[in-house]
Protein backbone atom coordinates (compact mmCIF):
# COMPACT_ATOMS: atom_id res chain seq x y z
CA UNK A 1 0.00 0.00 0.00
CA UNK A 2 2.92 2.33 0.54
CA UNK A 3 3.17 3.20 -3.14
CA UNK A 4 4.49 6.47 -4.43
CA UNK A 5 2.21 9.49 -4.78
CA UNK A 6 4.77 12.10 -5.80
CA UNK A 7 8.21 11.65 -7.25
CA UNK A 8 10.58 14.48 -8.13
CA UNK A 9 13.64 13.58 -10.17
CA UNK A 10 16.64 15.86 -10.66
CA UNK A 11 14.53 19.01 -10.55
CA UNK A 12 16.04 22.33 -11.60
CA UNK A 13 14.24 25.66 -11.49
CA UNK A 14 15.15 29.27 -12.22
CA UNK A 15 13.71 32.70 -11.55
CA UNK A 16 14.99 34.54 -14.58
CA UNK A 17 18.73 34.00 -14.44
CA UNK A 18 18.95 32.93 -10.83
CA UNK A 19 19.21 29.21 -10.42
CA UNK A 20 17.12 28.25 -7.38
CA UNK A 21 16.65 24.47 -7.43
CA UNK A 22 19.79 22.46 -8.18
CA UNK A 23 18.67 18.91 -8.89
CA UNK A 24 16.11 17.96 -6.26
CA UNK A 25 15.10 14.32 -5.77
CA UNK A 26 12.18 13.62 -3.50
CA UNK A 27 9.52 11.00 -3.07
CA UNK A 28 6.29 11.13 -1.08
CA UNK A 29 4.45 7.91 -0.50
CA UNK A 30 0.77 7.46 0.09
CA UNK A 31 -0.20 8.25 3.66
CA UNK A 32 3.23 9.56 4.46
CA UNK A 33 4.00 12.85 6.18
CA UNK A 34 7.19 14.53 5.03
CA UNK A 35 8.69 17.47 6.86
CA UNK A 36 10.63 19.91 4.67
CA UNK A 37 13.09 22.19 6.41
CA UNK A 38 15.80 24.65 5.60
CA UNK A 39 16.80 28.23 6.29
CA UNK A 40 15.31 31.24 4.58
CA UNK A 41 15.64 31.36 0.83
CA UNK A 42 16.83 27.78 0.38
CA UNK A 43 14.10 26.95 -2.14
CA UNK A 44 11.34 25.23 -0.13
CA UNK A 45 8.53 27.38 -1.43
CA UNK A 46 9.92 27.17 -4.96
CA UNK A 47 9.92 23.38 -4.73
CA UNK A 48 6.26 23.43 -3.69
CA UNK A 49 5.32 25.82 -6.45
CA UNK A 50 7.01 23.59 -9.01
CA UNK A 51 5.04 20.68 -7.71
CA UNK A 52 1.83 22.67 -8.17
CA UNK A 53 2.78 23.91 -11.60
CA UNK A 54 2.91 27.50 -10.37
CA UNK A 55 6.60 27.79 -11.23
CA UNK A 56 7.80 26.03 -14.34
CA UNK A 57 10.77 23.72 -14.04
CA UNK A 58 13.85 24.08 -16.22
CA UNK A 59 14.72 20.39 -16.27
CA UNK A 60 13.98 17.19 -14.42
CA UNK A 61 10.69 15.47 -13.94
CA UNK A 62 7.71 15.57 -11.61
CA UNK A 63 5.48 12.55 -11.37
CA UNK A 64 2.13 12.59 -9.62
CA UNK A 65 0.33 9.26 -9.43
CA UNK A 66 2.99 7.94 -11.78
CA UNK A 67 2.09 10.49 -14.42
CA UNK A 68 4.45 13.18 -15.69
CA UNK A 69 2.89 16.52 -14.75
CA UNK A 70 4.86 18.58 -17.26
CA UNK A 71 1.89 19.54 -19.40
CA UNK A 72 -0.72 19.71 -16.65
CA UNK A 73 -2.00 23.11 -15.54
CA UNK A 74 -2.28 23.94 -11.85
CA UNK A 75 -6.04 23.52 -11.64
CA UNK A 76 -5.83 20.03 -13.11
CA UNK A 77 -3.17 19.04 -10.58
CA UNK A 78 -5.34 20.43 -7.82
CA UNK A 79 -8.28 18.42 -9.08
CA UNK A 80 -6.04 15.38 -9.14
CA UNK A 81 -5.78 15.65 -5.39
CA UNK A 82 -3.18 18.20 -4.31
CA UNK A 83 -4.25 20.84 -1.81
CA UNK A 84 -2.16 23.87 -0.94
CA UNK A 85 -1.93 26.01 2.18
CA UNK A 86 0.54 28.69 1.08
CA UNK A 87 2.83 30.85 3.17
CA UNK A 88 0.82 33.97 3.96
CA UNK A 89 -2.32 31.73 4.02
CA UNK A 90 -3.77 32.82 0.66
CA UNK A 91 -7.18 33.77 2.07
CA UNK A 92 -9.48 35.49 -0.41
CA UNK A 93 -9.90 38.78 1.37
CA UNK A 94 -12.93 39.91 -0.60
CA UNK A 95 -14.82 36.69 0.12
CA UNK A 96 -16.50 35.84 3.39
CA UNK A 97 -15.26 32.91 5.47
CA UNK A 98 -18.19 30.87 4.26
CA UNK A 99 -17.52 31.74 0.63
CA UNK A 100 -13.86 30.83 1.01
CA UNK A 101 -14.97 27.39 2.12
CA UNK A 102 -17.80 26.64 -0.28
CA UNK A 103 -15.77 27.85 -3.24
CA UNK A 104 -13.25 25.09 -2.53
CA UNK A 105 -15.64 22.30 -1.60
CA UNK A 106 -15.75 19.36 -3.98
CA UNK A 107 -15.30 15.64 -4.01
CA UNK A 108 -11.76 14.39 -4.32
CA UNK A 109 -9.99 12.11 -6.75
CA UNK A 110 -12.37 9.35 -7.89
CA UNK A 111 -15.28 10.97 -6.07
CA UNK A 112 -14.14 10.43 -2.52
CA UNK A 113 -15.76 12.67 0.11
CA UNK A 114 -14.28 12.61 3.57
CA UNK A 115 -14.27 16.26 4.44
CA UNK A 116 -17.56 18.10 4.25
CA UNK A 117 -18.44 21.68 5.09
CA UNK A 118 -19.95 20.55 8.39
CA UNK A 119 -16.99 18.41 9.35
CA UNK A 120 -14.58 21.27 8.68
CA UNK A 121 -16.65 23.61 10.86
CA UNK A 122 -16.76 21.01 13.61
CA UNK A 123 -12.99 20.71 13.44
CA UNK A 124 -12.56 24.50 13.53
CA UNK A 125 -15.30 25.80 15.82
CA UNK A 126 -13.79 29.28 15.73
CA UNK A 127 -14.59 29.55 12.04
CA UNK A 128 -18.24 28.75 12.74
CA UNK A 129 -18.58 31.98 14.70
CA UNK A 130 -17.02 33.97 11.89
CA UNK A 131 -18.78 32.60 8.82
CA UNK A 132 -20.09 35.93 7.59
CA UNK A 133 -16.92 37.86 8.34
CA UNK A 134 -14.71 38.93 5.49
CA UNK A 135 -11.44 37.07 5.01
CA UNK A 136 -9.45 40.12 6.07
CA UNK A 137 -11.14 40.37 9.47
CA UNK A 138 -9.64 37.15 10.79
CA UNK A 139 -6.68 36.80 13.14
CA UNK A 140 -3.58 34.99 11.89
CA UNK A 141 -4.58 31.74 13.58
CA UNK A 142 -8.10 31.89 12.20
CA UNK A 143 -6.74 32.57 8.74
CA UNK A 144 -4.55 29.50 8.95
CA UNK A 145 -7.51 27.42 10.14
CA UNK A 146 -9.56 28.71 7.24
CA UNK A 147 -6.77 27.99 4.79
CA UNK A 148 -6.40 24.43 6.08
CA UNK A 149 -10.15 23.87 6.26
CA UNK A 150 -10.49 25.14 2.71
CA UNK A 151 -7.73 22.82 1.53
CA UNK A 152 -9.36 19.82 3.22
CA UNK A 153 -12.69 20.60 1.56
CA UNK A 154 -11.11 19.73 -1.77
CA UNK A 155 -10.71 16.20 -0.35
CA UNK A 156 -7.05 15.90 -1.32
CA UNK A 157 -4.64 13.00 -1.28
CA UNK A 158 -1.72 15.30 -0.63
CA UNK A 159 -1.88 18.32 1.64
CA UNK A 160 0.95 20.83 1.27
CA UNK A 161 1.46 23.27 4.13
CA UNK A 162 4.03 26.02 3.62
CA UNK A 163 5.08 27.70 6.88
CA UNK A 164 2.36 25.87 8.79
CA UNK A 165 2.64 27.82 12.04
CA UNK A 166 4.63 30.90 11.09
CA UNK A 167 3.66 33.94 13.13
CA UNK A 168 1.15 32.08 15.30
CA UNK A 169 0.99 32.19 19.08
CA UNK A 170 2.23 28.92 20.67
CA UNK A 171 -1.24 27.83 21.75
CA UNK A 172 -2.70 28.40 18.30
CA UNK A 173 0.27 26.62 16.74
CA UNK A 174 -0.53 23.66 18.96
CA UNK A 175 -4.08 23.63 17.63
CA UNK A 176 -2.71 23.58 14.10
CA UNK A 177 -0.39 20.64 14.85
CA UNK A 178 -3.39 18.88 16.39
CA UNK A 179 -5.34 19.29 13.17
CA UNK A 180 -2.42 18.08 11.10
CA UNK A 181 -2.38 14.99 13.28
CA UNK A 182 -6.05 14.34 12.49
CA UNK A 183 -5.38 14.82 8.78
CA UNK A 184 -2.47 12.44 8.96
CA UNK A 185 -4.53 9.78 10.69
CA UNK A 186 -7.15 9.98 7.97
CA UNK A 187 -4.52 8.70 5.55
CA UNK A 188 -3.84 11.89 3.60
CA UNK A 189 -0.20 12.43 2.64
CA UNK A 190 1.32 15.69 3.78
CA UNK A 191 4.29 17.85 2.92
CA UNK A 192 4.92 20.26 5.76
CA UNK A 193 7.27 23.22 5.82
CA UNK A 194 7.86 24.87 9.16
CA UNK A 195 10.66 26.57 11.06
CA UNK A 196 9.88 24.65 14.26
CA UNK A 197 12.11 21.68 13.63
CA UNK A 198 11.10 19.84 16.80
CA UNK A 199 7.42 19.94 16.00
CA UNK A 200 8.05 18.98 12.37
CA UNK A 201 10.29 16.04 13.17
CA UNK A 202 7.81 14.85 15.77
CA UNK A 203 4.88 14.80 13.40
CA UNK A 204 6.63 13.64 10.22
CA UNK A 205 7.58 10.14 9.17
CA UNK A 206 10.47 11.54 7.20
CA UNK A 207 12.44 14.74 7.32
CA UNK A 208 14.05 16.46 4.39
CA UNK A 209 16.51 19.31 4.72
CA UNK A 210 17.27 21.74 1.91
CA UNK A 211 20.38 23.84 1.56
CA UNK A 212 20.76 26.17 -1.41
CA UNK A 213 18.36 24.34 -3.65
CA UNK A 214 19.68 20.86 -2.87
CA UNK A 215 18.47 18.19 -0.53
CA UNK A 216 21.20 17.41 1.99
CA UNK A 217 19.29 15.14 4.30
CA UNK A 218 16.42 12.73 3.69
CA UNK A 219 15.71 10.07 6.27
CA UNK A 220 13.30 8.98 8.99
CA UNK A 221 12.78 11.73 11.52
CA UNK A 222 14.58 10.30 14.56
CA UNK A 223 17.80 10.19 12.54
CA UNK A 224 17.80 13.95 12.16
CA UNK A 225 18.03 14.51 15.88
CA UNK A 226 21.17 12.38 15.99
CA UNK A 227 23.05 15.02 14.00
CA UNK A 228 23.23 18.09 16.20
CA UNK A 229 26.25 19.54 14.37
CA UNK A 230 24.53 19.15 11.01
CA UNK A 231 21.37 20.68 12.40
CA UNK A 232 23.36 23.70 13.43
CA UNK A 233 24.81 24.09 9.94
CA UNK A 234 21.68 23.38 7.99
CA UNK A 235 18.98 24.89 10.12
CA UNK A 236 20.77 27.16 12.54
CA UNK A 237 19.32 25.45 15.61
Amino acid sequence: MLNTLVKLTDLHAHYGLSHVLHGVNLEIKRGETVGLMGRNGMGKTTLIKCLLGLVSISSGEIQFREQNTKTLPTHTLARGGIAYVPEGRGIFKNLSVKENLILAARSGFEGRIEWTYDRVLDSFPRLKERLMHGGQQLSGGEQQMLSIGRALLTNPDLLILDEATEGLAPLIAQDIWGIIKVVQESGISALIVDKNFKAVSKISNRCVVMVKGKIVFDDVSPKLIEHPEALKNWLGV
Partner: protein
Amino acid sequence: MDAFAIFIQAMNGIQYGLLLFLVASGLTLIFGIMGVINIAHGSFYMIGAYLAWSLMGWLENFWFGLFVGVAAAFLLGLVLEWMFIRFLYDRDHLQQVLVTYGLILIFSELRSVIWGDDVHSVAIPALLDGSIQLTENLAYPIYRLWLSGVCVVIAILMYFGIQHTRLGMMIRAGESDREMTKALGINIGLVYRFIFALGVSLAAFSGMISAPISSVFPGMGSQVLIVSFVVVVIGGLGSIKGAMVAALLVGLIDTFGKVMSLDIFGINIFPEMAGMSIFALMALILIFRPQGIFGKEY
Protein backbone atom coordinates in the same frame (compact mmCIF):
# COMPACT_ATOMS: atom_id res chain seq x y z
CA MET B 1 -37.47 75.32 -19.29
CA ASP B 2 -40.66 74.38 -17.56
CA ALA B 3 -41.03 71.47 -15.17
CA PHE B 4 -42.15 69.04 -17.86
CA ALA B 5 -39.29 69.83 -20.15
CA ILE B 6 -36.87 69.34 -17.28
CA PHE B 7 -38.52 66.03 -16.51
CA ILE B 8 -38.19 64.88 -20.12
CA GLN B 9 -34.55 65.92 -20.24
CA ALA B 10 -33.88 64.13 -16.95
CA MET B 11 -35.42 60.99 -18.43
CA ASN B 12 -33.23 61.34 -21.50
CA GLY B 13 -30.17 61.92 -19.36
CA ILE B 14 -30.89 58.85 -17.26
CA GLN B 15 -31.54 56.77 -20.34
CA TYR B 16 -28.29 57.89 -21.92
CA GLY B 17 -26.50 57.26 -18.65
CA LEU B 18 -27.91 53.74 -18.38
CA LEU B 19 -26.79 52.94 -21.89
CA LEU B 20 -23.34 54.30 -21.07
CA PHE B 21 -23.33 52.07 -18.02
CA LEU B 22 -23.94 49.03 -20.18
CA VAL B 23 -20.89 49.80 -22.30
CA ALA B 24 -18.71 51.00 -19.43
CA SER B 25 -19.52 48.06 -17.19
CA GLY B 26 -17.93 45.64 -19.65
CA LEU B 27 -14.86 47.83 -19.82
CA THR B 28 -14.57 48.15 -16.06
CA LEU B 29 -15.18 44.42 -15.47
CA ILE B 30 -12.51 43.37 -17.93
CA PHE B 31 -10.11 45.80 -16.33
CA GLY B 32 -11.11 45.04 -12.76
CA ILE B 33 -11.14 41.28 -13.08
CA MET B 34 -8.46 40.54 -15.63
CA GLY B 35 -6.40 43.71 -15.39
CA VAL B 36 -6.67 44.25 -19.13
CA ILE B 37 -7.21 47.68 -20.65
CA ASN B 38 -9.32 46.90 -23.66
CA ILE B 39 -9.59 49.94 -25.89
CA ALA B 40 -11.26 47.80 -28.58
CA HIS B 41 -14.38 47.78 -26.41
CA GLY B 42 -15.92 50.59 -28.46
CA SER B 43 -15.43 48.54 -31.61
CA PHE B 44 -17.75 45.89 -30.24
CA TYR B 45 -20.38 48.56 -29.68
CA MET B 46 -19.93 49.68 -33.28
CA ILE B 47 -20.07 46.09 -34.52
CA GLY B 48 -23.26 45.60 -32.52
CA ALA B 49 -24.91 48.57 -34.18
CA TYR B 50 -23.92 47.42 -37.68
CA LEU B 51 -25.03 43.88 -36.85
CA ALA B 52 -28.38 45.28 -35.78
CA TRP B 53 -28.66 47.11 -39.08
CA SER B 54 -27.96 44.03 -41.25
CA LEU B 55 -29.66 41.46 -39.08
CA MET B 56 -32.86 43.46 -38.80
CA GLY B 57 -32.72 43.77 -42.56
CA TRP B 58 -32.30 40.04 -43.20
CA LEU B 59 -34.36 38.58 -40.44
CA GLU B 60 -37.00 41.30 -40.42
CA ASN B 61 -37.45 40.70 -36.76
CA PHE B 62 -35.85 42.91 -34.12
CA TRP B 63 -35.98 40.34 -31.33
CA PHE B 64 -34.59 37.47 -33.32
CA GLY B 65 -31.92 39.79 -34.70
CA LEU B 66 -31.02 40.83 -31.17
CA PHE B 67 -30.65 37.22 -30.13
CA VAL B 68 -28.51 36.25 -33.10
CA GLY B 69 -26.36 39.37 -32.72
CA VAL B 70 -25.64 38.78 -29.05
CA ALA B 71 -24.82 35.12 -29.68
CA ALA B 72 -22.46 36.09 -32.52
CA ALA B 73 -20.78 38.69 -30.31
CA PHE B 74 -20.33 36.13 -27.56
CA LEU B 75 -18.63 33.75 -29.98
CA LEU B 76 -16.45 36.56 -31.27
CA GLY B 77 -15.49 37.30 -27.67
CA LEU B 78 -14.51 33.69 -27.03
CA VAL B 79 -12.37 33.58 -30.14
CA LEU B 80 -10.68 36.94 -29.47
CA GLU B 81 -9.88 35.97 -25.91
CA TRP B 82 -8.34 32.75 -27.10
CA MET B 83 -6.38 34.37 -29.92
CA PHE B 84 -5.19 37.58 -28.27
CA ILE B 85 -6.44 38.59 -24.87
CA ARG B 86 -5.28 35.61 -22.82
CA PHE B 87 -1.68 36.48 -23.63
CA LEU B 88 -2.14 39.94 -22.16
CA TYR B 89 -3.09 39.14 -18.56
CA ASP B 90 0.46 39.27 -17.28
CA ARG B 91 1.69 41.96 -19.65
CA ASP B 92 1.93 45.64 -18.87
CA HIS B 93 -0.77 48.09 -19.85
CA LEU B 94 1.14 49.54 -22.78
CA GLN B 95 1.20 46.19 -24.53
CA GLN B 96 -2.48 45.68 -23.80
CA VAL B 97 -3.28 49.06 -25.32
CA LEU B 98 -1.16 48.30 -28.39
CA VAL B 99 -2.75 44.92 -29.06
CA THR B 100 -6.29 46.16 -28.53
CA TYR B 101 -5.52 49.21 -30.66
CA GLY B 102 -4.55 46.73 -33.36
CA LEU B 103 -7.98 45.17 -32.93
CA ILE B 104 -9.61 48.57 -33.41
CA LEU B 105 -7.83 48.99 -36.74
CA ILE B 106 -8.75 45.49 -37.84
CA PHE B 107 -12.40 45.90 -36.96
CA SER B 108 -12.60 49.35 -38.48
CA GLU B 109 -11.17 48.02 -41.75
CA LEU B 110 -13.43 44.97 -41.67
CA ARG B 111 -16.42 47.19 -41.07
CA SER B 112 -15.47 49.29 -44.05
CA VAL B 113 -15.11 46.17 -46.24
CA ILE B 114 -18.28 44.45 -45.06
CA TRP B 115 -20.66 47.32 -44.44
CA GLY B 116 -19.08 50.30 -46.16
CA ASP B 117 -18.71 53.77 -44.68
CA ASP B 118 -22.28 54.97 -44.98
CA VAL B 119 -24.53 56.12 -42.21
CA HIS B 120 -27.58 53.96 -41.60
CA SER B 121 -30.62 53.94 -39.41
CA VAL B 122 -32.52 51.12 -37.79
CA ALA B 123 -36.26 51.14 -37.27
CA ILE B 124 -37.78 50.93 -33.82
CA PRO B 125 -39.47 47.53 -33.44
CA ALA B 126 -43.23 47.70 -33.94
CA LEU B 127 -43.98 46.43 -30.47
CA LEU B 128 -42.20 49.36 -28.86
CA ASP B 129 -43.06 52.03 -31.38
CA GLY B 130 -45.11 54.88 -30.06
CA SER B 131 -45.18 57.18 -27.12
CA ILE B 132 -46.74 57.51 -23.75
CA GLN B 133 -48.76 60.68 -23.46
CA LEU B 134 -47.67 62.57 -20.36
CA THR B 135 -49.67 65.74 -20.78
CA GLU B 136 -51.63 67.16 -23.62
CA ASN B 137 -48.56 68.21 -25.52
CA LEU B 138 -45.78 66.11 -23.98
CA ALA B 139 -45.08 62.50 -24.81
CA TYR B 140 -42.23 60.11 -24.06
CA PRO B 141 -41.16 57.34 -26.48
CA ILE B 142 -41.88 53.81 -25.26
CA TYR B 143 -38.67 52.51 -26.81
CA ARG B 144 -36.53 54.72 -24.58
CA LEU B 145 -38.40 53.56 -21.51
CA TRP B 146 -37.90 49.95 -22.52
CA LEU B 147 -34.21 50.58 -23.14
CA SER B 148 -33.78 52.08 -19.67
CA GLY B 149 -35.64 49.17 -18.13
CA VAL B 150 -33.41 46.64 -19.86
CA CYS B 151 -30.28 48.42 -18.68
CA VAL B 152 -31.54 48.45 -15.09
CA VAL B 153 -32.35 44.75 -15.21
CA ILE B 154 -28.89 43.91 -16.59
CA ALA B 155 -27.24 46.07 -13.94
CA ILE B 156 -29.11 44.21 -11.20
CA LEU B 157 -28.30 40.81 -12.71
CA MET B 158 -24.64 41.76 -12.95
CA TYR B 159 -24.47 42.90 -9.35
CA PHE B 160 -26.30 39.81 -8.16
CA GLY B 161 -24.11 37.57 -10.30
CA ILE B 162 -20.92 38.91 -8.79
CA GLN B 163 -22.12 38.96 -5.21
CA HIS B 164 -24.17 35.79 -5.00
CA THR B 165 -23.26 33.19 -7.61
CA ARG B 166 -20.50 30.64 -7.72
CA LEU B 167 -19.12 32.27 -10.85
CA GLY B 168 -19.10 35.58 -8.98
CA MET B 169 -17.16 33.97 -6.16
CA MET B 170 -14.60 32.62 -8.60
CA ILE B 171 -14.23 36.05 -10.15
CA ARG B 172 -13.67 37.74 -6.81
CA ALA B 173 -11.32 34.99 -5.68
CA GLY B 174 -9.29 35.28 -8.88
CA GLU B 175 -8.98 38.98 -8.33
CA SER B 176 -7.80 38.55 -4.77
CA ASP B 177 -5.27 35.76 -5.41
CA ARG B 178 -5.01 34.21 -8.85
CA GLU B 179 -2.48 31.51 -7.92
CA MET B 180 -4.53 30.34 -4.97
CA THR B 181 -7.66 30.19 -7.09
CA LYS B 182 -5.91 27.86 -9.52
CA ALA B 183 -4.49 25.84 -6.66
CA LEU B 184 -8.04 25.14 -5.48
CA GLY B 185 -8.76 23.50 -8.81
CA ILE B 186 -10.53 26.39 -10.52
CA ASN B 187 -9.84 26.87 -14.21
CA ILE B 188 -9.53 30.61 -13.99
CA GLY B 189 -8.55 30.89 -17.65
CA LEU B 190 -11.95 29.55 -18.63
CA VAL B 191 -13.66 31.95 -16.24
CA TYR B 192 -11.79 34.85 -17.84
CA ARG B 193 -12.68 33.70 -21.33
CA PHE B 194 -16.33 33.65 -20.35
CA ILE B 195 -16.15 37.09 -18.73
CA PHE B 196 -14.42 38.60 -21.73
CA ALA B 197 -17.03 37.14 -24.08
CA LEU B 198 -19.73 38.48 -21.78
CA GLY B 199 -18.15 41.93 -21.94
CA VAL B 200 -18.06 41.79 -25.74
CA SER B 201 -21.70 40.72 -25.84
CA LEU B 202 -22.68 43.53 -23.51
CA ALA B 203 -20.98 46.12 -25.70
CA ALA B 204 -22.50 44.68 -28.87
CA PHE B 205 -25.91 44.47 -27.21
CA SER B 206 -25.64 48.14 -26.22
CA GLY B 207 -24.77 49.02 -29.80
CA MET B 208 -27.72 47.01 -31.08
CA ILE B 209 -30.34 48.50 -28.79
CA SER B 210 -29.06 52.01 -29.24
CA ALA B 211 -29.11 51.72 -33.04
CA PRO B 212 -32.82 52.65 -33.34
CA ILE B 213 -32.39 55.90 -31.38
CA SER B 214 -29.11 57.05 -32.83
CA SER B 215 -27.70 56.49 -36.24
CA VAL B 216 -25.28 53.75 -37.23
CA PHE B 217 -22.00 55.31 -38.39
CA PRO B 218 -18.31 54.39 -38.66
CA GLY B 219 -16.96 56.54 -35.81
CA MET B 220 -19.53 55.50 -33.23
CA GLY B 221 -17.13 53.07 -31.53
CA SER B 222 -14.45 55.58 -30.64
CA GLN B 223 -17.04 58.10 -29.55
CA VAL B 224 -18.58 55.74 -27.03
CA LEU B 225 -15.17 54.42 -25.96
CA ILE B 226 -13.99 57.84 -24.89
CA VAL B 227 -17.10 58.61 -22.86
CA SER B 228 -17.01 55.10 -21.35
CA PHE B 229 -13.46 55.63 -20.22
CA VAL B 230 -14.51 58.87 -18.56
CA VAL B 231 -17.25 56.92 -16.78
CA VAL B 232 -14.88 54.17 -15.69
CA VAL B 233 -12.32 56.62 -14.37
CA ILE B 234 -14.90 58.67 -12.48
CA GLY B 235 -16.55 55.58 -11.01
CA GLY B 236 -13.35 53.79 -10.09
CA LEU B 237 -11.56 51.24 -12.26
CA GLY B 238 -13.19 47.88 -11.72
CA SER B 239 -16.24 49.10 -9.83
CA ILE B 240 -19.71 48.20 -11.15
CA LYS B 241 -21.40 50.45 -8.61
CA GLY B 242 -19.06 53.28 -9.54
CA ALA B 243 -19.73 52.77 -13.24
CA MET B 244 -23.47 53.08 -12.56
CA VAL B 245 -23.20 56.28 -10.54
CA ALA B 246 -20.68 57.83 -12.90
CA ALA B 247 -22.64 56.86 -16.01
CA LEU B 248 -25.79 58.50 -14.66
CA LEU B 249 -23.80 61.58 -13.70
CA VAL B 250 -22.22 61.86 -17.12
CA GLY B 251 -25.52 61.15 -18.86
CA LEU B 252 -27.32 63.90 -16.97
CA ILE B 253 -24.54 66.46 -17.30
CA ASP B 254 -24.23 65.82 -21.00
CA THR B 255 -27.97 65.91 -21.69
CA PHE B 256 -28.71 69.03 -19.66
CA GLY B 257 -25.63 70.77 -20.96
CA LYS B 258 -26.86 70.35 -24.50
CA VAL B 259 -30.27 71.93 -23.92
CA MET B 260 -29.39 74.71 -21.52
CA SER B 261 -28.47 78.01 -22.94
CA LEU B 262 -26.43 80.81 -21.54
CA ASP B 263 -25.60 83.61 -23.86
CA ILE B 264 -22.39 85.45 -23.43
CA PHE B 265 -21.81 88.16 -26.02
CA GLY B 266 -24.59 86.60 -28.02
CA ILE B 267 -22.96 83.17 -28.14
CA ASN B 268 -24.59 80.23 -26.42
CA ILE B 269 -21.73 78.65 -24.52
CA PHE B 270 -23.55 75.74 -22.92
CA PRO B 271 -23.40 72.95 -25.50
CA GLU B 272 -19.63 73.30 -25.75
CA MET B 273 -19.32 73.52 -22.00
CA ALA B 274 -21.31 70.31 -21.61
CA GLY B 275 -18.93 68.42 -23.81
CA MET B 276 -16.05 69.76 -21.80
CA SER B 277 -17.58 69.47 -18.36
CA ILE B 278 -17.45 65.68 -18.20
CA PHE B 279 -13.75 65.79 -18.95
CA ALA B 280 -13.30 68.51 -16.36
CA LEU B 281 -15.11 66.30 -13.87
CA MET B 282 -12.79 63.45 -14.77
CA ALA B 283 -9.76 65.67 -14.31
CA LEU B 284 -11.01 66.78 -10.88
CA ILE B 285 -11.61 63.18 -9.86
CA LEU B 286 -8.14 62.21 -11.03
CA ILE B 287 -6.60 65.01 -9.01
CA PHE B 288 -8.55 64.64 -5.77
CA ARG B 289 -9.70 61.04 -5.75
CA PRO B 290 -7.60 59.11 -8.26
CA GLN B 291 -9.14 55.79 -7.27
CA GLY B 292 -12.54 57.05 -8.47
CA ILE B 293 -15.74 57.55 -6.49
CA PHE B 294 -16.01 53.95 -5.39
CA GLY B 295 -12.43 52.81 -5.62
CA LYS B 296 -12.31 49.19 -6.59
CA GLU B 297 -15.32 47.70 -4.86
CA TYR B 298 -17.92 46.12 -7.10
